């Protein structure tokens, strides 16, 4: 809460100092009767860069830092008061203290209450310190800046240099995100592999992430062989591609080559609606409409179909991917130069022959790229399979049976309260790393192939 209030007060103060700075520049111009190098507003913008920006960064750092600092201080304080406490007990006590401060619980232990009182007062002190330091910094910087305005300096240039630097940081943010993903997944995954053999994970044929309730329980460790989970993912993705690829591709061919403009203008947006529907809606449809439909159909034919069959999840996922494939392929087909078509017509080919023998081969790299991107999407899709596919990992390729996927396992391992040093939780990061690597390879491959096509006809 203090963060928002402080941000707003910083903004308010900065707007005042902005105007003050502007007037000061105008006044100086009037007094010294010399033209300034830049417009008055550029000096003011420069002021913001030198006052608001550092103050806001300080505020951010303090907001992130103070809770950790307090935690550190008070776990030491608790450790002093109770020298015999283990680390877990200290943490438990600390969260108890925090809850008391928040008013969520009350305690009748005097020692805890005393520490809670101290905690409350020092966190208040920290808040006051934070507010004072940020506002003071902002004021100080503003005053120094306004005092030392030099009209012969090019303020615009320095503003623009600052902005350019900020833009570069924003662009590098994309790299940082990727790095953050890789590092965070790897760190947790390495912790997992220190508890569980890497090769057993990659090549293991048995997936049963149970936690032991008793020490002597059979299979207390749980086994984390990802082959069955991977197989399930592949089964579901294959079914999805069987549905999506022909329908998406033929729709794209028709829309790009045969359809008249009005038809295209109507059909394309409607297909885009299909793309805009949230995946949770497809999941709902798969679980409550498609799955019973396939089960009843199977019962009618005398085949037993599981009520969480791979085919229900896969085919609904296919429907979801249709617009993805059709719009990507549509773009690719339309990017094939008209001259190729004209040449083919000139040699007497029919439209269908032109399409199958000239246009599609020319567009092939792009189509393959689209296909790979769609596969990567199918593998990473979560909600449909969470809602419609099962949890039990069987080593089967039968689409009528229950299968499980990587994403389903990640969700089921990580929802609810999770401990970070639990092998079960860590195994989810192992799966996450596998998923990321897999989709990364597919994406990079797809993007390289499509890039080749774009270069060929540019």
């Amino acid at each position, binding site marked *: 809460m203090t963060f928002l209030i402080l941000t707003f007060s910083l903004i308010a103060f900065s707007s005042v100092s902005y105007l003050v700075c502007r007037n000061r520049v105008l006044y100086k111009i009037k007094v010294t009767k010399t033209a300034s190098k830049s417009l008055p507003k550029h000096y003011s913008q420069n002021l913001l860069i030198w006052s608001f920006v550092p103050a806001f960064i300080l505020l951010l750092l303090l907001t992130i830092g103070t809770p950790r600092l307090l935690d550190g201080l008070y776990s030491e304080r608790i450790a002093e008061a109770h020298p015999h406490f283990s680390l877990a007990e200290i943490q438990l006590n600390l969260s108890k203290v925090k809850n008391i401060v928040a008013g969520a619980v009350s305690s009748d232990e005097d020692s805890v209450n005393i520490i809670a009182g101290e905690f409350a007062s020092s966190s208040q002190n920290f808040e006051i310190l934070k507010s004072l330091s940020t506002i003071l910094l902002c004021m100080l910087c503003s005053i120094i800046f306004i005092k030392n305005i030099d009209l012969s300096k090019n303020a615009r240039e320095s503003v623009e240099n600052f902005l350019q630097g900020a833009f*570069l940081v924003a662009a590098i943010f994309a790299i940082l995100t990727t790095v953050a*993903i890789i590092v965070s997944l790897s760190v947790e995954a390495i912790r997992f592999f220190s508890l569980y053999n890497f090769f057993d994970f990659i090549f293991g044929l048995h997936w049963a992430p149970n936690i032991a309730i008793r020490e002597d329980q059979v299979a207390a460790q749980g086994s984390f062989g990802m082959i069955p989970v991977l197989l399930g993912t592949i089964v579901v993705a294959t079914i999805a591609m069987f549905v999506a690829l022909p329908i998406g591709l033929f729709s794209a*061919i028709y829309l790009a080559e045969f359809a008249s403009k009005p038809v295209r203008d109507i059909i394309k947006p409607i297909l885009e609606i299909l793309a805009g529907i949230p995946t949770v809606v497809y999941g709902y449809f798969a679980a409550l409409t498609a799955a019973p439909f396939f089960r009843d159909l199977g019962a009618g034919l005398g085949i037993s179909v599981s009520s969480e069959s791979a085919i229900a999840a896969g085919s609904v996922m296919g*429907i979801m991917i249709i*617009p993805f494939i059709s719009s990507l392929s549509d773009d690719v087909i339309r990017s094939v130069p008209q001259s190729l078509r004209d040449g083919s017509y000139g040699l007497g080919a029919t439209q269908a022959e032109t399409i199958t023998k000239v246009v599609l081969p020319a567009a092939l790299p792009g189509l393959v790229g689209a296909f790979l*991107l769609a596969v*990567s999407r199918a593998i990473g899709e979560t909600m449909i399979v969470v*809602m419609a596919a099962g949890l039990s990992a069987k080593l089967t390729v039968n689409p009528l049976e229950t299968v499980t996927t990587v994403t389903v396992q990640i969700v089921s391992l990580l929802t609810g309260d999770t401990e970070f040093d639990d092998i079960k939780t860590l195994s989810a990061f192992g799966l996450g790393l596998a998923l990321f690597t897999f989709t990364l390879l597919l994406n990079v491959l797809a993007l390289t192939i499509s890039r080749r096509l774009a270069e060929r006809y540019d």
Partner: protein
Amino acid sequence: MNKDKRLKKRHAREKRLKFYGITSICIALMMLFTLLSSITLNGYTAMQQAYIPLKIIVPGEKLLNSDGEVDAQKALLFNWDSKVKKAFRTNFPEVKSRSDKKELNRLISSNSGYDVKQFFIKNVDAFDNERVIWITASDDVDQYLKGRFNTNISEEDRRLTNKQLNWIDRMRSEGLVKLKFNKNFFTSADSREPESSGILGAVVGSALTMFVTVLLSLPLAVMASIYLEYFAKPSRLTDFIEVNINNLAAVPSIVFGLLGLSLFLSFFGLPRSVPLVGGMVLALMTIPTVIIATRASIRAVPPSIKDAALGLGASKMQAAFHHVVPLAMPGILTGTIIGIAQALGESAPLLMIGMVAFIIDVPSSFTSPATALPVQIFMWADSAERAFYERSSLAIMFLVVFLIMVNLVAVILRRKFEKKW
């Protein structure tokens, strides 16, 4: 002759290809229709809810303090449940035995005592008079009245006994239970009882999350795009940034959830289940999409405009901000709207950071536990009570209609302001 045959064959192939195209488009459209109609058919009934009128007198002296206001302590101790149950049972004077009474009580919502209490706290002048209050019936009654209750299975397996069904039939014929507009659905947050659950909490949670997402992703994405289109010289770094952006746009959303879990929750120690973290995770996910759209629209502005500005002595920054960005604005906005619409429907990353908790309060700040609308849909679709399914469907209808409207706005914006050069 042979030639004619071959020509016919070639033309037949042409027709076949066309036919395949039309068929697949028809299949896709049919799927869309099936999807939307099955959800509508499942969900429209949730607009109504079974209500039971009860005549209740509450003596004011027991609850009001000397200022004529409801005393909180007294209201807490007052047995509202039994008051409601007694009032309900006056309609069935013949029910005497304990077990029958229990069965009868199950027809009204177990939250009705609380609802009546809230009513009296709000309407202080209602004390001491006989008031007709419409309380919610239990979800089973509601489903039975809507014809969604399967009476063909044996009595032991059903949630309503034959006796209860007879009572409901009698109540219906006497006008003692009616389907009325389901107000709770729009004014309350989640609940264990389907009849008192609503989407308000999830909608507010989604709105807070989206606010954070827009605040973070729009400026960052626009800044990055301007850099890449204007200032970046072709170099390894630029190339690498581009590869990263394109790849991030195709990374599965659940991976961003894992990132949020281990970076924001575990490393930075931010709280679980809060819109602030949800918004940050969704922003990371949306930024690449918005960057790609923004760059495309910046590139669509002819370079001659920039060159003219530079020729007249503008700096690069001035050329960008005074001329190119304003012209590219419709495209940038469209891209942002589409990216945000995508984020609004996203649920997998939110599951990872714990926004899947059962929360009965409407969230009040960016750091109070909340859930989002798609996650609410997921939770309801996953629960055991049938009455939750139709609520899930109705919530989907609102979400989808909203998303379609948002996308339409984006399309209209683009059509209206887009300039052809």
